[in-house]
């Protein structure tokens, strides 16, 4: 009964979305306030109905209602309750329902908190947003309905892959989805602005919090996925340039670019049409990502749905929305007249460089990702485009970005002078010193390591110099320290996010360049040396888990001068799945991880043991977290609470907020 209710709610939500797509839009065109105002209750209803529907599906999973096909395929009565719930989105249909739930939540939030947005713009935004929702409702109802019943329900379900029963992985998809879908808000604002033919600083201020929020979630989502791969896949890789990973990485790159160009629109009313284009592309690439994952056109084993009808449908949505909107853009972009003029040496120019590098790198990743498909279809060549290609082509862009970032962050708006960069001299010297030192100490490794480490130092020191410079020159240090604490949150957010980028870069450079590996057959009781560590296999015992049996090794690791550490890597066998898994044992540290994997037993009583010393591994995800934290700080800046919350923003800053009270970004 509850299931039917959920199904019905979903159909109703689809109807509401269709209504919300049409009526407020016509209201905006014909200037009918009543028609426009209807968008708000409609957005609320759409969200409420979708939430009911999602709740009903969750109920079916929690109560193990095996009359639902989806529950049979993805759940089992013995599964812990947490994984029964996360199982709701651990499959194609359920994950799409989560997708529209987030989509409608964002729409409702725009309706509730967007009171500062002019009514006509808001009506258009919500109508465009509803049209995206309608397309996905139709997709779910017609091709991927989660509420389909089975005539003869089985006694139990088929369970979930044991590897997926992991808390980190359980929350990874929702984070990514909030990120993807958050970009739809920027898309809706962009399309509404095109329809309306007007983009101003206020528009930039409304778009940026949404983009920022989406970006924070994308950053955390991607970081979680990477971290999971590191500790679970058994050899400590953290990024594979897999099509599915790239599908989340391209929107992230474009969202990062959008975040920065929206600042230029907001502060200086320049780069308007480019920002609109970026907003369209960022969400477009979210759709491309969905297409890649759902259609399975690329390396199909990665997709949980290899149903061509679904892929075609998403391709249709993609062409209709992105193609149609790009056409609209081509027709209307000329009307977006730039107001703010800037000199070649200025913050604006630096942000143009940022956007150029981020957008081109996203396109390069895109081309690399789809190239096997193009090569096969057009040139009749079956080939692979793997990590070596992506590393070669992508790394130069990162180096360029890192080089320019601290410089651009210090340049004043509108018209700058090289003099403004003088405080960075110390940071530059420090960075060069770090490069040379790393180079000299660790000879015989790739040259990229020292360069990347120098750049990381440059980023972190540059952010610190920038913050310090904002406290005013000439004042005594104590006064400046006091001012430091009172700097706007946006300034702190910017510095913190840039430091996070530097830390991630440092972690990646250190891990990929200076890792130590050791592979050997270890015999119990015989110590051996890996790097600075003394390692002894004490023994291997059999352990019975709840639904697996495990060979668990006890390995003692001694560092000079520190007490012994015991690590317990395992080899598990899940009888139901019939496959072995390895559980690496990781000793997490601030400067290094010791990562030990247990391999096969040997006839003579020894075991294959793989030991990796991974320097600064945790800095990769720590940096990502700090980037997200920086985004959060920026989002919590008073200006955005004002902008998102109330019409006060317009009252306070009638000329669009470019006046003196606004902190420089």
């Amino acid at each position: 009964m509850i299931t039917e209710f959920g199904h019905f709610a979903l159909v109703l939500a689809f109807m509401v979305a269709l209504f919300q797509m049409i009526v407020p839009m016509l209201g905006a065109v014909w200037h009918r306030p009543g028609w426009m105002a209807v968008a708000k209750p409609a957005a609320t209803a759409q969200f409420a109905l979708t939430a009911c529907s999602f709740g009903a599906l969750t109920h079916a999973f929690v109560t193990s209602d095996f009359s639902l096909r989806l529950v049979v395929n993805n759940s089992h009565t013995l599964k812990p309750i947490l994984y029964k719930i996360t199982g709701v989105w651990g499959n194609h249909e359920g994950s799409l329902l989560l997708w529209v739930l987030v989509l409608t939540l964002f729409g409702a939030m725009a309706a509730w908190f967007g009171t500062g947005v002019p009514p006509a713009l808001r009506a258009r935004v919500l109508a465009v947003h509803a049209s995206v929702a309608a397309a996905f409702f139709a997709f779910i109802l017609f091709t991927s309905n989660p509420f389909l019943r089975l005539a003869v329900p089985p006694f139990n379900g088929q369970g979930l892959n044991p590897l997926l029963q992991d808390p980190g992985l359980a929350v990874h998809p929702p984070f990514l989805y909030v990120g993807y879908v958050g970009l739809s808000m920027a898309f809706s604002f962009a399309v509404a602005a095109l329809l309306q033919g007007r983009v101003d600083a206020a528009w930039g201020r409304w778009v940026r919090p949404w983009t920022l929020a989406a970006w924070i979630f994308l950053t955390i989502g991607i970081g979680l996925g990477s971290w999971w791969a590191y500790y679970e896949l058994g050899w400590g890789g953290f990024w594979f340039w897999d099509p599915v990973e790239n599908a989340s990485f391209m929107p992230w790159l474009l969202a990062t670019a959008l975040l920065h160009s929206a600042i230029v629109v907001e502060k200086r009313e320049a780069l308007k049409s480019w920002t609109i284009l970026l907003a369209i592309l960022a969400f477009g690439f979210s759709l491309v990502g969905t297409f890649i994952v759902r259609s399975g056109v690329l390396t199909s084993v990665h997709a949980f749905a290899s149903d061509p009808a679904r892929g075609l449908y998403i391709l249709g949505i993609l062409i209709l929305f992105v193609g149609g909107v790009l056409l609209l853009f081509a027709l209307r972009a000329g009307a977006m007249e730039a107001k703010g003029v800037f000199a070649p040496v200025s913050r604006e120019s630096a942000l143009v460089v940022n956007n150029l590098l981020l957008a081109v790198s996203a396109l390069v990743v895109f081309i690399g990702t789809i190239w096997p498909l193009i090569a096969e279809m057009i040139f009749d060549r079956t080939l692979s485009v793997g990590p070596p290609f992506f590393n070669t082509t992508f790394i130069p862009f990162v180096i360029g970005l890192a080089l320019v970032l601290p410089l651009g962050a210090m340049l004043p708006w509108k018209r700058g002078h090289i003099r403004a960069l003088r405080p960075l001299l110390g940071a530059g010297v420090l960075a060069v010193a770090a490069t040379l030192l790393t180079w000299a100490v660790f000879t015989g490794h790739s040259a990229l390591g020292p360069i990347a480490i120098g750049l990381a130092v440059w980023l972190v020191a540059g952010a610190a110099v920038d913050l310090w410079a904002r406290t005013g020159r000439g004042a005594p240090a104590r006064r400046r320290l006091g001012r430091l604490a009172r700097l706007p949150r946006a300034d702190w957010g910017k510095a913190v996010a840039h430091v996070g980028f530097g830390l991630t870069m440092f972690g990646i450079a250190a891990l990929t360049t200076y890792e130590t590996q050791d592979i050997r057959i270890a015999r119990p009781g015989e110590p051996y040396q890996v790097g600075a560590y003394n390692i002894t296999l004490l023994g291997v015992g059999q352990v019975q888990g709840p639904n697996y049996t495990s060979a668990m090794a006890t390995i003692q690791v001694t560092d000079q001068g520190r007490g012994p550490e015991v690590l317990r890597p395992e080899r598990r066998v899940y009888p139901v799945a019939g496959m072995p898994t390895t559980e690496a044992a990781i000793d997490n540290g601030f400067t290094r991880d010791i990562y030990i994997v247990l391999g096969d037993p040997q006839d003579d009583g020894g075991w294959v043991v793989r030991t990796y010393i991974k320097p600064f591994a945790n800095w990769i995800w720590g940096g990502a977290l700090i980037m997200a934290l920086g985004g959060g700080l920026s989002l919590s800046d008073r200006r955005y609470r004002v902008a998102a919350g109330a019409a006060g923003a317009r009252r306070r800053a009638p000329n669009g907020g470019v006046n003196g009270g606004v902190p420089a970004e």
Partner: protein
Amino acid sequence: MLVLIMALGLPMAAAAVHPDEVLDDPALEARARDISKGLRCLVCRNESIDESTAELARDLRLLVRERLMAGDSDAQVRAFVADRFGEYVLLNPPARGSTLILWLAAPALLLFGVGLAVAYVRRQARAPAPAEAALSTQDKARLQKIMKG
């Protein structure tokens, strides 16, 4: 990532190179590892033979080491493997024929982008600075028109 796991599943669970495969000469072994990272495991998709636990990957790793022992250069080893298993095995697509487009895409796009950006910035810099003033005179004219009308 979720999807990645569902599909790749368990075979990915352990690192691959076995102690008995490791060559005695560390320089040669380092080269073998480097080459292995650029060769695709044909039965597991999106894993290099260096990472894969599959039997075929092991055979390929042994083949690479055999060729290195026989004195082949890195390029010769890659060519040897590609001749037998097809271009698909190379994770780093060789820059010839149509693949040149792929390799040139990044520099070409970058150059194109730089051209656009430079043109934009220069046009910006040259544009009349007080755009607001120009608008307001227009507005004044319109206002006068309205007043007259």
